């Protein structure tokens, strides 16, 4: 098992390098540059040149990349060209907002999704199943942006129960977490249902029924445990996604998360901010995948044995 974990960890090193090259290249291929956003009426060419030199934008791209990478290993992600503050400081500020929203939303997705999936699978082809799947479909397809505004309208404007926006309190986390969580719940519910029905048709389940084991015990101890394996994979992949993929929700609820930091940086072409936040988000996805693999191996002895 440990051999498997170490091998997966070592694999993350080349992935990190490849990611850093892709992120750096992509943002520099896109037209535009941050200096144009800083130059306003009256400012001289000399000042523009001074800024270009200050941020090494006059150097060839490989040199710029080498400078960025060298600083990265020293824990320095550079300074925001627009905000003039260290990127690490900005990330430290924005990350907790994304983490709190992402993790709450994932927990909500898991609990809601698995519950709906079990309910649906247990009552296959009944109205409960159909209703649960309609709700799941609704969660998957409805745009988070729209859902967020509708939830604000109902719970903040009409019922006056929750705040429209904000980020300082636990109460202000409820609406954004539900908005993000519903999408994930829909997906997990559908996967749980399909997976449970598939496991339920396996020979060993028929054998358990034949042995006279209780329906409830078979469902929860044997079917669900096996059916959760793909759900865990999806959850792992969503960890990285919810950190940066919730940008529309962050914008609707005015939450200063990583997604919002990235989008603002992108529009301003603030290279250090974009590179820093994209790298963190990408590594979040890599880490999420790693965790999913480890959990997968932990829950499924076949995977573990295969690697041994």
């Amino acid at each position: 098992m440990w051999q498997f974990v170490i091998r997966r960890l070592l694999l993350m090193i080349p992935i990190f390098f490849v990611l850093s090259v892709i992120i750096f290249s992509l943002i520099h291929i896109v037209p535009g540059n941050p200096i144009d956003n800083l130059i306003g009426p009256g400012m001289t060419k000399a000042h523009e040149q001074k800024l270009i030199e200050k941020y090494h934008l006059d150097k060839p791209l490989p040199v710029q990349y080498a400078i960025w990478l060298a600083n990265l290993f020293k824990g320095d992600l550079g300074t925001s060209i627009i905000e003039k503050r260290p990127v690490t400081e900005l990330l430290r500020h924005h990350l907790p907002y994304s983490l709190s929203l992402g993790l709450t939303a994932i927990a909500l997705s898991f609990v809601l999704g698995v519950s709906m999936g079990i309910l649906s699978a247990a009552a296959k082809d009944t109205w409960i199943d159909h209703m649960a799947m309609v709700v799941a479909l609704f969660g998957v397809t409805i745009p988070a942006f729209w859902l967020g505004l509708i939830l604000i309208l109902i719970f903040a404007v009409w019922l006056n129960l929750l705040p429209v926006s904000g980020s300082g309190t636990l109460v202000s986390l409820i609406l954004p977490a539900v908005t993000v969580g519903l999408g994930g719940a829909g997906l997990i519910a559908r996967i749980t249902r399909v997976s449970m029905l598939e496991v339920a048709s396996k020979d060993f389940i028929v054998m358990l029924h034949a042995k006279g084991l209780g329906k409830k015990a078979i469902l929860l101890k044997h079917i669900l445990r096996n059916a959760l394996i793909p759900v865990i994979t999806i959850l792992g992949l969503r960890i990285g996604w919810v950190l940066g993929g919730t940008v529309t929700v962050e914008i609707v609820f005015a939450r200063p998360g990583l997604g919002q930091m990235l989008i603002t940086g992108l529009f301003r072409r603030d290279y250090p901010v974009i590179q820093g936040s994209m790298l963190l988000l990408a590594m979040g996805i890599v880490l999420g995948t790693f965790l999913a693999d480890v959990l997968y191996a932990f829950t499924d002895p076949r995977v573990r044995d295969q690697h041994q």
Partner: protein
Amino acid sequence: MRKTIIQVCMMLLAACIFLAPVQAAAEKVLYAAGDPNELGVTTFNPIKVELSHEAMNLIYDKLIEWGADGNFYPALIASWDISDDGLTWDLGLRQGVTFHDGSPFDAEVVKWFLKEMETGPSAYMVGSIDTVEITGPYSVRMNLKYPEPNMFFNMSQPFMAVPSMAAYKKYGDTFGIKQIVGSGPYKFESWSPGNELVLVKNPDYSWGPDLVQNKGPALIDKIVYKDTKEESTRFLELKTGKVDVVFSVPTMFISKIEEDPALKIVRMPGTDLFHMIMNTQSPPLDNELVRKGIALAVNQESITKNVFAGAGKPAYTYLLDTLPASRVGKENEIRFDPKASRAAFEEAGWKTGPDGIRQDKDGNKLVLTLLAKNESSYRRSAEVIQAQLAEAGVDAKITLMDPSSIRAHYKKGEHQLAVRSYEWENADILEWFLNSKRMGYPNAAMWHDNESDYLMHKAMTRSRTQEERVANFTTYHTYLLNRYVWAPFYQPDTVFGVGSRVVLPEKRMARKFMNIGILDWDIQ
């Protein structure tokens, strides 16, 4: 004994519960929400920053204040006396002003500040100053290299606000980022990136300019600027009373706010001008008659009504109508005139083809590219202009891009038409956008004309008085209008949504809404 202790504790707890709301209610907090891009960038070193934040106007005092009536009012500079040749400025400074760190504002600070300004991006604002002499503890003399009537405007800008000399020298590079020390009616308290900026009242402030009734301290204890990017959220925050002021209310929410008796709309003269640039070096736009045909085919009234729901006014010149140099006479304005547009195209040799698209003598169709920012007001303006140009026989193909990509496109010079806007309250914006030394960007019209450059230099550097400057800029502006380098179409009002708690003064003399005029605001 034990019972007594419990009783005392209960009494203390009850006292805390009853007193806490009283204390909280005593503090007057104003919440203002805006798009972070509109509120600005949160670096507060007026000498070194390229981009400013709204709060800069409250943290720092300016040397001069610019009123809504267009006049300049004493602020940190209490009086001025300018020599007839415009080269010697004797300035009397306001006494009794202290910065937030307790250091005094005096002649020494002004001398240091005007010198230090030369090191930053806004050095051009003091470019005309030769030397500064201290003539007394609260008076200085500025000797200018050439007359600069625009100095009043420069001194009224947040980029020329005065920081504490002591703090600036003490903190160096981190000044304006970690330490922010001005002398304004509010002090910097905290900043949470992408979230909120908090200012607290400067209790020692007592030197408000003549523009305000209350000379200080401010009546509102705390101001919280909230970064709220989504306009629907801003509107709902205002509606639910979570914020008191919303910056730049979009057109679609204006009527909704007006319908709500608890809310109100405040309109201020706009500082933006929407226009369509024409690349004067890209055929057939290098032909002035073609540009004239296009400019006169743009129906300003229709765009103002249909795209912006009348939340502003049509623009007929290249400058804001609040600026004196915009008064060029009706005959020089660019107004929708389909007949004259058709005549210009015909004279240029572009006749209407069988499909309604104009063609030249070689059969080439009048097909042009039209760039626009990927935001609703720009996109919709471009769509309406596209339809209007189609009426005139021009086939405009729209391409939407983000602002940074558009600027990169301008630099290549491959564009033809582009819908854009600028925000600047001075006639010198014409120099910025149409100086032949800045081809590509900012001179996206790729305008290179010797007569134009001559008139521009005359207006920029050879005006001795404000009146002369206005006259020179009017001539330059008139010349440009008659060359049809842009097609102006819209000047939006700056619209704010205000909640029921805010008590505004009946008469507002400040030029900007949440500016120094906030000294006269109160919270119910």
